[in-house]
């Protein structure tokens, strides 16, 4: 019954092809066909930010984005940040600051931080708090996440 489109896009720096179900989200495609489990499903309605990915340089809730809309885009997921030369400074900052407890919100937090820093490498605490307002964390109380976001700024790689 389901209708699929063949789409081509760049995923974490590599060209990929996929059969995208017109009724499915980018989140489902990434978690399903590409086994990119770092992009988390936590609410499925754009309220928690756990599924945040970067599409053409902008952060998106992948749960709200139709999979077919990935056609022709450049997509970055949390898995794309760990490269042969090491983990991303944002990931390292989250580890060093103690910004991770259960870790379920962490990929979304890291991707949103990555996006914020791409726009402004010198975030103030207030800018980081506003920028991460749409990402829910139930463990940390956000303090160490904000510290990580600010601290990663000066050494961001991209």
């Amino acid at each position, binding site marked *: 019954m389901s209708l699929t489109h063949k789409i081509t896009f760049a995923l974490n720096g590599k060209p990929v092809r996929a059969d995208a179900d017109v009724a499915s989200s980018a989140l489902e495609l990434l978690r399903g066909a590409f086994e990119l489990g*770092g992009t988390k499903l936590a609410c499925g309605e754009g309220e928690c930010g756990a599924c945040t990915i970067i599409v053409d340089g902008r952060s998106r809730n992948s749960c709200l984005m139709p999979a077919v809309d990935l056609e022709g885009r450049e997509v970055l997921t949390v898995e794309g940040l760990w490269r042969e030369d090491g983990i991303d400074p944002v990931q390292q900052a989250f580890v060093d600051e103690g910004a991770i407890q259960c870790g379920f919100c962490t990929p979304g937090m890291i991707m949103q931080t990555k996006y914020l820093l791409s726009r402004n490498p010198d975030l103030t605490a207030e800018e980081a708090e506003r920028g991460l307002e749409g990402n829910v964390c139930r463990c940390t109380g*956000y303090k160490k996440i904000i510290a990580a976001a600010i601290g990663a700024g000066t050494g961001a790689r991209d």
Partner: protein
Amino acid sequence: MDKIIEKHSMIGKRVTKLDAPDKAVARTRYINDMVLPRMLYGKILRTDRVHARILSIDTSAAEALPGVQAVITAKDTPGGKIGVLRDNPPLKGDVVRCIRDEIAAVAAETEELCDEAIRLIKVEYEDLPTVFDCTSALANGAPIIHEDRPDNIAMEQNFEHGDMAEGEAQSDFVVEGAYNVHYVTHCNMGVSCTVADYDTDGRVTIYTQTQYPFNVKMDIAPSLGVHPGDVRIIQPPVGGAFGSKLDVYPYEPICVFLAKKTRRPVKLIYSREEEFIASPTRQPVEFKIRAGMKKDGTLTFRDCDSLLNNGGYTSWGATTPYVTMRTMTSHYTVPNVRYRARAVYTNNPFAGSFRGYGNVQATWALETHMDKMAEKIGMDPIAFRLKNANPPNQITPQGSNLGCIDLVGCIEQAAAKSDFLAKWHANNKAWAEPGRFKRGIGIATSLHNAGGAKIHKSDGCGTMLKMDDYARVTIITGGSEIGQGLDTVLAQLVAEELGVPMRDITIINNDSALRPWDVGVHASRTTYIAGNSAVRVARKARDQILRAAAAHTNMLPDMLDLRQGHVVQAETGLALMPLDRILRQMHFAGAEAELVMATDYYEPPSEPEDANHMGDMSAAYSHAAHVAEIVVDTRLGTIKVEKIWSAQDVGRVINPVGLEGQIEGGIAMGLGYGLSEELKIVEGKVLNPSFRDYHVMTAPEMPELDLTFIETGDAEGPAGAKGIAELPTIVIAPAIGNALYNATGVRIDHPPLTPEKVARAIAAHKGLLG
């Protein structure tokens, strides 16, 4: 050149979490991410009624749907029940008692097929009379929720100590108050999920988020019709738990039934909406408190009666009075105390356990009440609390020895750092002044168990240790990791004893077939209990190594030490041989060969409560004081929390990073409880099952935090530490309520302090309109 290695302690060092790098790069596979070969998905059909008799269930259309592998109802189950009172059948066959009730379940190749099949199941009901509040449920002629409990009382606890009449007679003032605390829910970022897998011999492996692995074996087995020994519990990483996973809930046996029926692994995962509707809540309570004091502020008696809305079934929520009672009878020195709690069946959703347990509720009521009492006799909130603070080593009315506590220090530090009294007096004086924005400061304190809680015959934890030929250490602990940082603290404690780097320590903590027994992760017990067991097992291994090293070096074992991967002379630090070399020499010693392997089972020196609620149930106790400074917009009713000063008795700091993380996160959760979070339940139905309508704290709403750790050095705790994780969630909300009063003269007894509620209360308060 002789190499000298100084003693280098790990205790108190800032250490990052062992599991953090894998979580940062998404190598961690959570239970929500699990896929097994040939795995099916499962879904539950829930009722849309709150109290009804089931007349018929027609599953034929669902069964005929291609791709559906199984459809089950109550008649497909062995009939055993789950829950604290074994009153909850996983699938309901005759009556539904609350909105979340499970009627049928399906297993199919995809989640979408499951949803389609669920929609094809037809259920006919006959509605029954409903009751939603405790008082109505206790009235004569109220609808009966469970036939075997015609009075609708699920559980009752009573305690009395001293002479209440004498306390009343000694009182110069008596203050009465009523406090209704509300429904909130955990909002774990990882929704409820389980995977069940049967083998050919009738044994079942359950992958689950449980915090209580060994008791779950016992609790789930009767509902499955299997022996507890045939249940293997595996705990993959979870997206938060916070007490939500202490009991067995219906979805877990349902998933097992589906796996048994299909002979395939089945994964059952909630939607977020389902998580809001069908997870146990924090226990709501209606408190009534009467308490007396002398003119000088000395407390004379305290009487607390409470009703708990139990909902349709009995989970751990009904047992929260065991913790509430400790606060009501023992927080501050009160010579005469009485406490009564009744958990009353209604047609609401049922409550479970939630970080802080009954103490979040108790501390809201008690600390609001304490502020009212202080005002009644014209004392400031600090002086009144100090006047009645528990001293160290006090024996409480329930027979606990509070040991090395420092409630006075907590209050004094929080008050001094926040300049509390100057601000408090100034704010009080400013009540009558015009102005839309009012500043307020408030304090609250709490008492909590900090060395486990002996609610079973044992509150112990087992640990096994092995070392290999390369001096790598494996710790197999009974303790569970739910993101709170157990692995890291155990590695730190073991590294301290064995002089090895933390990265050389592997912690195995997730499989009941491998691990020795442990109660579970609850009651702020894990660092204390699992930590002590890890220290003890490491000391056994250390002794074994030092005995062998002594024989090789012609020295005595107590002249040696283990430092930085070496056996050293303790006095001088002179390196004698690498640790891995002595381990290999022990291993390849012919007939004398030995491997370093050790086991330990640590039972804390605490005792279970007896039938009269007497007993020193924890090996340690602790306090925290929180001061909150707020600005109230009297027109909009919004409360901006500007800063929180926390002073907490932590015993001893093992890892400041982990400690800060627990306290900061606990405060955020407590702020939500006090300010914004409420699961709105009207006539048994959940009205706001989404993050959009259920407001947890976000980053910009967090105030500045000032944390003070008070180190009392517990004689029993690992390196002197106490359990710390629940107190921060417990204390903060009443400090904000008290600050609201200090700012405006308006007292709100029933949280949360939402803008609407605050604005209405201020508008109703004469003289402050404007």
